[in-house]
Structures are given as structure tokens and as C-alpha cells.
């Protein structure tokens, strides 16, 4: 028994080493390592905190959505199991009264089905989140040349996504003396970039971080939370990061929970197969 377990482990370790050693190193440098927000959804058993997702949605809705779209997200997704406005009493996400109300707040561009003219109408749960700008060029033109990126999958599009967004939003500091900042730019220590060309100070102490076109947008009590949570910059950053993490992969919790079942099945099946293997090979010396 032990010998074959050892053999198997040897092979498994070799295979894992091959995978891990070759995993791509994060190439972009310059930004500070994100701070850990201690999110509830981290780890194999972590789930989203519905209250936090609702607060995060409110921050997105009232602050971020002025410039950032989330064009891959439908309103109905908000009412899916595990989503911010999931209601077990609703027959389906599209029947969810919160989702219907939130969708109706949005104004959707459409074509009038009678006369074919462009029109606007209130949103329905089937609609996608509306974009704040008609197109990318308009978005760039309105923001000094830098189009605000879409946030639909932002937590997957950055290394350590949720912690990165949290750190960036709550991490604005005054630029260190000796750093030349161009108009329309802001310094953020968590933004990837290379500050060397803009740094007049000590060459061995170039500050980490980069320039970002987004000003620090979160101010204390900017949002009034419905559950009475104090709206500090740190809290709002955390909440909206959790919401973006959820939006980047609404099926993440379902995935992890499915994985537990799959692993349990695989372990039992592997054990049974090993027992069969022992039995079949019993009389073969090899």
C-alpha cells in the first residue's frame, strides 16, 4: 500500500510542480501590492455577504455609474441566487420586485416599435446596465482622453482583483514631493506604472504606483446606506469592490459549492478504484 501511494504521490507532486513553477508571473510592475480587505467570499467556502453587495450596488449606482458602464451585466442577474437582490419568494429573477424597481430607474435607448424613431423607455429586468456614454469616443472625450473602463469583469481583469480595486479606491494619497504630475492625472500608489521619468528625487527611492485619470471620487458619507452602516471611504471602497467581484463572476459561489460535491465524489470514487486495483493486481508480482 505505502509504496504505491508513494509512487502516486511522486507523480502527482511532479505534475503539480510543473504546473506551479510554470505559472505565469505577473508581468506588470510598479504598483504597490494590494492591501487585504478580508472579503467574505475569499477561500473555497467563502460566500458573498448580501448586505455588502446591496451597499456596493448603491455605491456603483450613485457614484461609479456616472462614468463607468457594466455592459455585460443584466438587471435580472441582480436577482439571481447569491446576487445582491435575491429574493427566495420571487418566482424568478425577472419577477423579483427589487430587480423590477431598480431596472425601472434606468433609462434605456430603444426604437419605437410603431414609428421606428429612437425613443427612451424605463428599463426591464431583461435589459443590460445602460452605458453612461453613447460610445467609447464620447467616453474618452468627456474624460480628458481616457475612457473610463467597463467594470463588468474588472475583478478578473486585474491581478488579485477585488483587493486591488479596494486598495486603489481607498488608497489615494498626496503625491510625494518631487513627483511631477501632469494636469488631469492623479497619483495612486496601487496603480501599475513607472514613476521614474516623473521623479526628481533620489533615484533609488522612486515611489511605487502610477498615474490614473480618475480623481479620488469617494468622500465620507457620499452615499447614505439603508442599513445604517457608516459610509467611510474604506467601507464604500470595500463594498463596491465586493459588488464588482460578484458582478465579474456571478456564478463563483455556485462554482465553489459544486466543486465541493465534485471533490467528495472524486475522493470516494478514487478510493473505490484503488481498492479494485489492489484486488485485481493481488496475484501479480510486478
Amino acid at each position, binding site marked *: 500500500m505505502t509504496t504505491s501511494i508513494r509512487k502516486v504521490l511522486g507523480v502527482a507532486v511532479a505534475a503539480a510542480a510543473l504546473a506551479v513553477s510554470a505559472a505565469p508571473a505577473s508581468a506588470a510592475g510598479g504598483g504597490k501590492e494590494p492591501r487585504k480587505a478580508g472579503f467574505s467570499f475569499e477561500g473555497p467556502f467563502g460566500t458573498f455577504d448580501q448586505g455588502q453587495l446591496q451597499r456596493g450596488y448603491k455605491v456603483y449606482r450613485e457614484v461609479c455609474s456616472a462614468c463607468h458602464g457594466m455592459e455585460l451585466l443584466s438587471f435580472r442577474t441582480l436577482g439571481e441566487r447569491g446576487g445582491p437582490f435575491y429574493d427566495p419568494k420571487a418566482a424568478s429573477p425577472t419577477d423579483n420586485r427589487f430587480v423590477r424597481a431598480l431596472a425601472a430607474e434606468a433609462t434605456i435607448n430603444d426604437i419605437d416599435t410603431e414609428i421606428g424613431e429612437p425613443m427612451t423607455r424605463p428599463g426591464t429586468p431583461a435589459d443590460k446596465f445602460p452605458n453612461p456614454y453613447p460610445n467609447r469616443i464620447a467616453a474618452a472625450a468627456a474624460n480628458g482622453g481616457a475612457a473610463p473602463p467597463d467594470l463588468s469583469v474588472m475583478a478578473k481583469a486585474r491581478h488579485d482583483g477585488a483587493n486591488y480595486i479596494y486598495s486603489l479606491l481607498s488608497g489615494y494619497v498626496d503625491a510625494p514631493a518631487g513627483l511631477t504630475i501632469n494636469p488631469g492625472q492623479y497619483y495612486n500608489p496601487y496603480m501599475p506604472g513607472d514613476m521614474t521619468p516623473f521623479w526628481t528625487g533620489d533615484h533609488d527611492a522612486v515611489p511605487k504606483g502610477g498615474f490614473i485619470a480618475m480623481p479620488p471620487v469617494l468622500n465620507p458619507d457620499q452615499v447614505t446606506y439603508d442599513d445604517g452602516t457608516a459610509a467611510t471611504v474604506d467601507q464604500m471602497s470595500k463594498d463596491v469592490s465586493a459588488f464588482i467581484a460578484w458582478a465579474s463572476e456571478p456564478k463563483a459561489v455556485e462554482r465553489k459549492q*459544486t*466543486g465541493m460535491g465534485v471533490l467528495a465524489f472524486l475522493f470516494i470514487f478514487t478510493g473505490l*478504484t484503488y481498492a479494485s486495483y489492489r484486488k485485481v493486481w*493481488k496475484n501479480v508480482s510486478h
Partner: protein
Amino acid sequence: MSGHESTYVPKTGIEKWLDTRLPIVRFGADYMSLPTPKNLNYWYTFGAILTVCLMIQIITGIFLAMHYVPTTAGAFASVERIMRDVNGGWLLRYVHSNGASMFFIAVYVHMLRGLYYGSYKAPREMIWILGCVIFFLMIATAFLGYVLPWGQMSYWGAEVITNLVGAIPLIGEPVLIWLRGGPAIDNATLNRFFSLHYLLPFVIFGVVVLHLWALHTSGQNNPVGILIPKDRAKKDMIPFHPYYTVKDGFALLLFMIMFAVFVFFMPNALGHADNYIPANPLQTPAAIVPEWYLLPFYAILRAIPDKFGGVVAMFAAIGVLFVLPWLDTSKVRSMRYRPTMRIFYIFFVINGLILGWCGAKLPDAPVIGNFTTFTLIDGDLNSFLWLTRFATLYYFAFFVVLLPFVGLKEIPLRIPLSISEPVLSGPDAMSGAVPAQAEKKG
């Protein structure tokens, strides 16, 4: 194709009827009863694992293709729609994207096993060469597939790799335009990449059939590396089924556990975050890196200062595998009995990992610490550029210098007369990786 005498006896009426018209049941029965050396260790289970990997990729791929939109405007959003709105779509996609990595883990282990036990030597050259064809097709398929989500790495990876063709003198430019379907990477490129990505797995499947045909014709190699004489076949061979179906099955399940850990708990760990940014031809990413499994070849490409030279070196790195059976001059198959070559082999494996590491780093970055030493020709000695060059040199030297010369000079250890001998004489002192000792109980 079975390569051994048929022992199948049709029993029922329909089997007898079918056997004289289309002996497909006989084929299957003979296939499963192939006499197989009884000393195959767990390194030999990766063939079966690879078969399953290919099947998983084809099946998940077919379902993904039903929802994927191969246009530059729709590709990225359609992949995310699969993740959000298609029933079980997140599972299909993560199994497919991580499946590619698992496929390459398994194929590298499989190839290194063949290299260690000399499975490429006569009479098994065709098995090895067909395997190399499969490997090359896998690389092509994986590259094409990586372009399909149309993220930043997809686009820029396609840009870098197709540009390599442009480095070929004279015909490079026109061939490049022909491959891309236009002067730049665009909708036409994405469309043809999708078409070819769907086609190649079936070509791989066909070559796998040939690979197995060759295997069943010349018979399995084994860790001892000797051909099993006819008169010992009864003692040393066992039918593939049930002995190896159950052993491969057990190993496969262990592999599946690792696969599941990636799919369900760290599905994006092996990918690059930049590929969740939609492709933008106007914005080059900070660093363009391929998927981990292509990093060693990417490193070799960058090791050569000349672009065309790099392309030649990269293809030569794969091409040299095809002639491996004729580069190795040793009469001994298994490196268990080749004390010198074993050491070079271990260095070769480490060297491969180093090349992968180099491929992920910027060439100018220092390897150790954060200091510079002295400039050698075009780069600092303490840089990944030079580490890559040394590693590339060893990669080729292993095949074209070490294998031919060590094979002639080396004095091999005494080789057992039969594969049962190491069993009878206890643990084989030379096989550090996988001791071929008896493991019977009761």
C-alpha cells in the same frame, strides 16, 4: 491494428453475424486484451489520461462553439454570456480553458517518460514521431484557442506569433497577409482561427489513432526497457484489461482531483488577468506572455537576437524531437541503467523549467538580486536574456551532443534478462524516481 493474436470468440448470434461482416467487437476485444508488460509504473498512466483530456476538450469545445460568436465585436461578450447565462456554461468554459493546461501537464509528463525509458528507440520510432506530430498540433490548437476569447492577450499573442511568419525572408510578408486574411489581425483572422481551432482536435484524434496503432504493433515499452522474449510472454505480460484499465483509471481519478481543484477553486490561476480586458489594437499590454505551457518555446524564440533566427530556433526546438530516435546512440533503452545519461536527463528537466521561468520574465530583468554585473555582448550577464541563452544551449546540446556522444562512451549498468528479475531481486537501486519493487499483499 491489435498487433497480437486474436482470442475473441463470438458467442451470441448477432456477434457471429457481425464478426463476418464488420468485426468491430473483435477489434474492441483484441484492443482491450493487448498483452502488456506487467511492470509499467504510474508514469505510464499518462497515455490514458491524455486520451481522456482530448475527449474532454472536444466535448466541452463542441458545446462552447454552440454559444460562441466568432466576430471581433461579439467574441468577448459571448464568452462572458457563456459564463453568466448559459446553463452550466461557466463549467464548460472553465473545464475547457483549464483542460488545455491539464492536457499540457499530462503531455509533458508523457513525453519526459518516453525520453527517460527510451520509448522512442527501435522498434518504436513511429510511436514517438506520431507523438511529436500530436504535440505540434496541440501547440497549434492551444494557440488558436487562446485567441478566441478576444482579450488583450489573445489579440497581442496572435499579433506576436503571426508576425513570426513575417520574419521569413522574401515570402514572409505575403504569407503573413494570407494567414491573417488581411494586413492586420481582424475579423477575418478570428474567423479562420475559430474554424481551424475546431478542425485540429479531430486531426489530433486521427493521429492518436495512428499513434495507438503503432503502439499496438510494436508493443509497449517498459521501465526496464528490454524487449520481452516470446517464451517469457506468459510470465511477464498481462492483458491490458482489467489490469491497466483499473490502474490507469485510478491514476486518472487522481489527475481529475487536481483538475477539479483548478476548475472549481482557482479557475483563472493559470491564465493571465489581461485576457479579461477586451482586445484593443491601439493599446499594447505592459508585457505579452503566452500561456504557461508555451513559455519554454517562447523563451527560446527570444534567446536569439535575430528575429528570423529566433523563429528557426523555436521550430528547431520542436523539430529536434522528431529525429530523437536517431540522435540517441545508446544500445540501452531505459535510463535506469544509464548512470551518466540519467544525470543529464535530470538537468534537462530542470532546464526545461528554467526555460519556462525565463519565458515569463522580461529579458532585461536581473535573475538574482537587483544588481548588474558586466555586459556580455548585448546584455548583462545577470539577466534573463543570458540565463535563457544558457538554457537554450543546454536544451539543444542535450539532443545533438549529449545523446549521441554519451551513448557511445557510457558504460551501462547490468540490464536484467527479464522484467521479472528486478522484482525477484528486490528494490532496484537505480530507479530513484519509481522503484519497481513488488507491492503484493496477501
